[in-house]
Structures are given as C-alpha cells and as structure tokens.
C-alpha cells in the first residue's frame, strides 16, 4: 500500500504535465471562437435591429449576448488556468524564456482588459443605454478579440520560430528585441489562420443550433436570421481560410521541414513524394497502409517544380530531435482530419453562397440543413486537429531547437493529481455549460416575451426596491 502510494507519488511528471496542458488548451480553444467571433456576429444582428427596426434581429442580439456572458466567463477563467499552468507545469521554460515569450502576453493583457470592460458594459447596457451608444460599446469587444487572438498566437508562433533574443554561454537570455519576438516569422500566417478559424468555428457553431432548430420544424423568420447571420460570416471566411492554410502549409515546408515531414509522413528525403491519406509508420519507420496519390505532396509543396520538388524527410535530423513514430502518426492523422473536414466545410460554404447568388435565398433542403447542423461540431474538430498538427508536430521541442519539453517541465511529482482534478472539474463545467445554454434556450422558447420592466432600449423605470434574485 505504502509502496504503491510512493510509486504513484514518484511518477514522472512530464507525461502528466503534457496531458494537462493539452487537455486544458483543447477545452479553452473551443470557447475562444465564441469569445472572438460571437461579439461580431451579435453586433451584425444588433446593427440590423436598430437600422431596420428588426424585432427578430434585436431578440437574437440580446439572447446571443446573454449566452456570450456565460461562455465568456468560462473562457476567461479557463484562460486564467493556462496562465497559471505556464508556471506550474513549465517553470523551467518560463524561468529561462519568460523574458521573451512573455512579451506578446503583455500586449494580449491589454486586449483582454478592453474586452472584459466593454463586455461588462455591452452585456449589462441593453436596458439603460441608448441604442447607438450601446451598439458602439460592442465594437471594442470585436477589436480586442482580434488583437488578443493575434497576440496569443504570436507567442505560440514564437515557440515554432524563436527569434529576437540573445543567449549567453550559460543559456540565459541576455538581450531581447521585443519587435522581433512579436513579429517572428511564423506569426503573420499562423495568427491569421487562427483568427479566421475563430470566425469559422464561431459562425458554424452558432448557425448549427438554428439549423437543428429548422430541422425540427422551427422555420420561422427568427430561426432563419439566426442561421443566416453566423453562417454567412463563416461561409465568407471559408475560402480565405483555404488560401491562408495553403500558404501556411508551404511556409511550414520551407521553414519547419521536420514538422512538414511529419504532416506528410515522409520518412526519407526524396522527390516525387506521394500524398498519403491515412496510413501509419511501422517500427522501422516505414509508411504502412493508407492511400498514396503519386507525386501530389511534392507538387503541392512547390507547384512550380511539380512532382520533382524535394521534400525533406524525418531522417534529416537525429531521432532525438524529431517527433516519435507514434507522434508522427498523430500529426499525420490530425492533418488528414483538418484538411478533409475543411474541404467539406468549404464545399458547404460554396453551396450556400452559390444558392444566394443564383437563387437569392439560402438552401432549404433537409440535406443542407443536416450538414449545416453537423458543421458546428465538425468545425470544432477541424480546429482541434489543426492545433494537434502544430503542437505535436513541434515535438520534442517546446522552443524549437532551443529547449525540449522534458527540460521545461516541473519536477513536481504531484502533477498526476492536479491532472485528475482538472479532468473532473472541467468535465463537470463542460457538461454544465452545455446544459445551462440549453436550459436558457428552452426557457426562452417556453416563456417568451422579453420583458422585465420594459425590455431593451426602453425609458428608465422608476427606481424600485425590489430585486430579482
């Protein structure tokens, strides 16, 4: 008993720390698009409501902002956990590179502040502020969401492409160029890719709820607008994401060859590399199974050279400096999932946009609505897969070519316990969040009439002593 306990307490913290970081990030990242894109989507409805005196849009804008209050709160606190975890799980990384890595977060802090302040005003300002001033208090939320995303992803991009610092012989950071840290080479494309992803996931996820509603026969104007506003945002963003994603993949080909080799599952350097769909590496590190499309990976890497383009393989670096075979399998599968699902979503967006162009209305078939209803969850999976590609693809490095994950981790052997606690608490919060959002929606459907002393934009009522608990 004591032995078992000691053994448990003495477990290596590194795999637990990785699991905890991966899990908390994967959880938080679902809330990010809602924080970043929902404000914009709500403001579109709000604008329509004021400009065209559209009661349905007004109702949507209010309800969305109420949902947003809940998701933003959970997003804010799960984001805080991540800040703690930088230190709790990776103290040696922060101790050594905080001087540089911390800089984008200082900028992000500014945006987060703005976002929280104006969210407080916007969410609570419906009743007493005048329509247009109230609308404008929502605009900083959108700007701050964009700025915050770009800053945080700049920090992540720096881990992929560390720059802007000088190390002395002891490995301590002795000089920093903040500009070069923020605008590292991976930052522009990676930030843009995540920013568009946030709008895609936000749009598809919100629209999917109304698509499901329409499938259940709620085909009134309220549901239609509730679908059209977010879905249009996502559909317009989708083609841009395909271009940015393609550009980013080629950037990775040129600048992070090992990650690219993992993505395309290329064991040895060669030209005329096939695009392998699915498949895995065996113990000898050879590709097994999957469907190979001859020459396509080479061709996509650099179309000007066609299939004669040379793709560097995993063997260009020693095994200790590249992802393990199992990790390569994960990266490759995540890549297939991301590209495959994104293509599906792209086709869905084309269907939608095409119908608008040619028929001046949204597609109404049940098939379209079914796919649209699934698109919310599918876009979340796509987003998660993209993060798996960039994070697992960087292994074993935490700061590429400077520090390995092993060397960054805490020595605290109790991480397995915090991981379990996090797992339980987050699972409870995740389930409750969904239940609470559903409960709100059901209550509105049954109760109706948005009036509690006058509703939005109404004159200020007499001060009353009574409080709604």
């Amino acid at each position: 008993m004591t032995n078992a306990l000691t053994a448990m307490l003495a477990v290596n913290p590194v795999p637990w720390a990785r699991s905890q970081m991966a899990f908390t990030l994967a959880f938080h990242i679902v809330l990010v698009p809602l924080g970043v894109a929902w404000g914009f989507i709500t403001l579109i409805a709000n604008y329509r409501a004021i400009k065209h005196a559209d009661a349905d849009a007004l109702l949507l804008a209010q309800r969305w902002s109420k949902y947003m209050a809940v998701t933003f709160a959970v997003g804010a606190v799960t984001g805080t956990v991540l800040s703690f975890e930088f230190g709790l799980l990776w103290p040696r990384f922060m101790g050594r590179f905080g001087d540089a890595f911390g800089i984008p977060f200082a900028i992000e802090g500014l945006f987060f502040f703005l976002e929280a302040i104006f969210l407080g005003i916007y969410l609570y300002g419906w009743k007493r502020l005048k329509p247009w001033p109230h609308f404008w208090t929502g605009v900083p939320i959108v700007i701050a969401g964009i700025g915050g995303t770009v800053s945080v992803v700049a920090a992540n991009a720096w881990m992929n492409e560390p720059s802007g610092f000088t190390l002395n012989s002891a490995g301590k950071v002795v000089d920093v160029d903040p500009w070069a840290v923020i605008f590292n080479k991976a930052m522009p494309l990676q930030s843009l890719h995540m920013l568009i992803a946030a709008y895609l996931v936000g749009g598809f996820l919100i629209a999917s709820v109304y698509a499901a509603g329409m499938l259940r026969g709620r085909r009134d104007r309220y549901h239609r607008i509730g679908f059209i506003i977010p879905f249009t945002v996502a559909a317009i963003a989708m083609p841009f994401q395909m271009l940015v994603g393609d550009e980013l993949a080629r950037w990775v080909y040129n600048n992070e060859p090992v990650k690219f080799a993992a993505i395309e599952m290329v064991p040895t350097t060669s030209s005329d590399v096939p695009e392998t769909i699915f498949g895995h590496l065996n113990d000898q590190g050879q590709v097994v199974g999957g469907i190979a499309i001859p020459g396509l990976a080479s061709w996509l890497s650099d179309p000007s050279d066609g299939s004669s383009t040379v793709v560097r393989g995993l063997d260009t670096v020693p095994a200790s400096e590249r992802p393990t075979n199992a990790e390569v399998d994960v990266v490759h599968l995540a890549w297939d999932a991301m590209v495959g699902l994104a293509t599906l979503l792209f086709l869905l967006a084309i269907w939608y946009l095409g119908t608008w162009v040619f028929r001046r209305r949204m597609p109404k078939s049940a098939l379209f609505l079914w796919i649209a209803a699934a698109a919310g969850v599918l876009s979340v999976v796509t987003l998660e897969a993209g993060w798996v590609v960039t994070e697992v693809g960087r292994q074993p490095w935490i700061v590429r070519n400077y520090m390995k994950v092993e060397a960054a981790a805490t020595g605290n052997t109790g991480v397995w316990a915090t991981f379990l606690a996090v797992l339980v608490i987050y699972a409870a919060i995740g389930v409750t969040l969904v239940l609470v959002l559903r409960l709100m929606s059901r209550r509105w459907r049954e109760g109706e009439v948005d009036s509690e002393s006058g509703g939005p934009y109404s004159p200020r009522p007499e001060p009353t002593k009574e409080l709604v608990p």
Partner: protein
Amino acid sequence: MSDVVAVILMIGITAYALFGGADFGAGFWDLVAGNARDGSTPRSVISHSIGPVWEANHVWLIFCLVVLWTGFAEAFASITLTLFVPLSIAALGIVLRGSSFAFRKEVTRTSSQRNFGAAFALSSVLVPFCMGAVAGAIASGRVPAGGKVGDPWSSWINPTSILGGVLAVTTCAYLAAVYLVWDARRLGDDEMVEYFRRRAVAVAVVTGIVAFCGFFVLHDDARYVFDGLTSRALPLVILSAICGIGSLVLLLRRRHSGARVLAMGAVATVIFGWGVAQYPYILPTSLTLTAAAAPDPTLWTVVIVFVVAAILILPSLGLLYYLDQRDLLDAPVEAET
C-alpha cells in the same frame, strides 16, 4: 529600471486586491448569508453588485502574472516550482468560482442555484486564502531561487502563510462589506445598508486584531520583512493603521463614502508597505529585483504597455464603473419574466 517594473507589479497587485479582492469578499458574504430564504436579499445585492464588473476586475490577476513572468521570469519560475500546491488550488478555485457564478445567474431551480452558489462562495474563500498563503511563503523567505525547489508543504503551511491567508480572507470580506454598504444604499435598500454595515464593522475589528497579532508572527517567522516593516516601511504601516481605524470610525458614524475611500487606502498602503519592506528582494533573501529582472528592452516593453494601459484602459474602466455606479448597467435583458 527593474524598480519601475516592480512598482507596476505592486500597482497591479493592489488593484487586484482592491477590486478583485472585493469580489472574492462578496463571495464570502454570500457564503455566510444563511439559508436560501434568509439569504436571498443579500445574495441578490451581491450578484447585482459584482455582475458587470467582476471579469474586468479579474483581469488584474492576469496583469500581475504577465508582469511577473515577463519582467521577473526567474522569480515566477521559483514561485511556481515551490508553491505548486496552493497555486494549483487557487487556479482550480478560480475556474469553479467564475463558472458557477455565471451558471447561477442562469438557472432558476432553487436547488441548482444553491449548488452553484455554494461552489461560488466556497471557492471565493479558498482562492484568497491560497493567494495570501503564497504571499506569506514569499515574505518569509521560503521560496528559494536558482531552480531549487522549496518544501512543497511547509513552504505554505507555516505561521506567516496562515497569517497571510487569514488576512487576505478578512481583508477581502472587509472591502466587500464596505462596498456593499454603498451598493445597497444606491439600490435604496436601507435594511441591507444596515446589514452590511454591521458586518463591515465586525470584520474590520477582526482584521485589525489579526493584523496586530501578525506583527508577532512576522517577528518570529519572517524577520527580513518584519525589520523592513518596522523601519523603512514604517510610515506606510502607520498610514495603513490610521486609514483602517478611520474607516471604522466613519462606518460607525455612517459616513459611507469616506469609509470606502479609507478602507481602500488601508489595504493599498499595507500592500505597498510589504513591497517596501521586502526591497530590494523579490524573493527575500535569495533573489533581488535586479538579479531577477529581464533585459532592459523587455522591461521597457512592460513599461510601455503599462503606459498604454493607463491611457486606454483606465478611462474605459472609469466608464464601466461610472455607468455601473449611475445604475445605467443592469442585469442583461431578461428574456423570461
């Protein structure tokens, strides 16, 4: 340069204590407000009071973490290495607190409100206690620098940490009660004004006694900080005591707005007093501010961000508090009746 960033860090900690701390304190009053029926009025005052502002107040914590890890990365690493346990508890407490507060507002069944309310209120006490214990661990020199790991338990379960934890909880409760008196008055609820005023007076007395006893604890357990507090930080300590006593007197005389200002002054001066007492160390007595400080360009970035924040954020925060105090912010439009 590192001193300037240290002052910015102190400002962040003070702001978090004054605003975020009061939100935690409100959770404490929520916890002790009694059963669902008796406690419903004070709970609704609390919910009304912190609803629009708690997230903005919470950002001060992020601000402090970012300044610490960017400006004094080695100190951040040492603190998180040694104080893994209380910081993990605090982080999970923050998640529980924020989510359950948001959930509680949206559920209608009394039993679910009670469950979320309990999670919100309990974590509101747990988090400041852990934060105070962390401060105590640092002040008493139990966090070693240089990649060494202090004792995972005794580093934060010791006289100074317990003092810090208890003081953090009572201080938060005190600030919250003083603010809630003000909020209740704005709502025109005389009964609640009296309710929170009585509690503010009681907890003010408790906080004063704990702080007084604290001197003996620090004398034995955190000698460097004790010496600092009784020498170069002495004016701040005296000022804090005067503010504290003054706010108590004003509370007794029902001068609520003055009491609020003096209460804030008492807390701000004691936090700055701690900082001055620790000087020039960030981790007494193993790591100085200068040794922990990042290269100058990084420190400059922190200063510039702080200045931009002062220009951009302060007016926005001012607008938020102004609208809130003028009652222009109300609960989000209720879709149900």
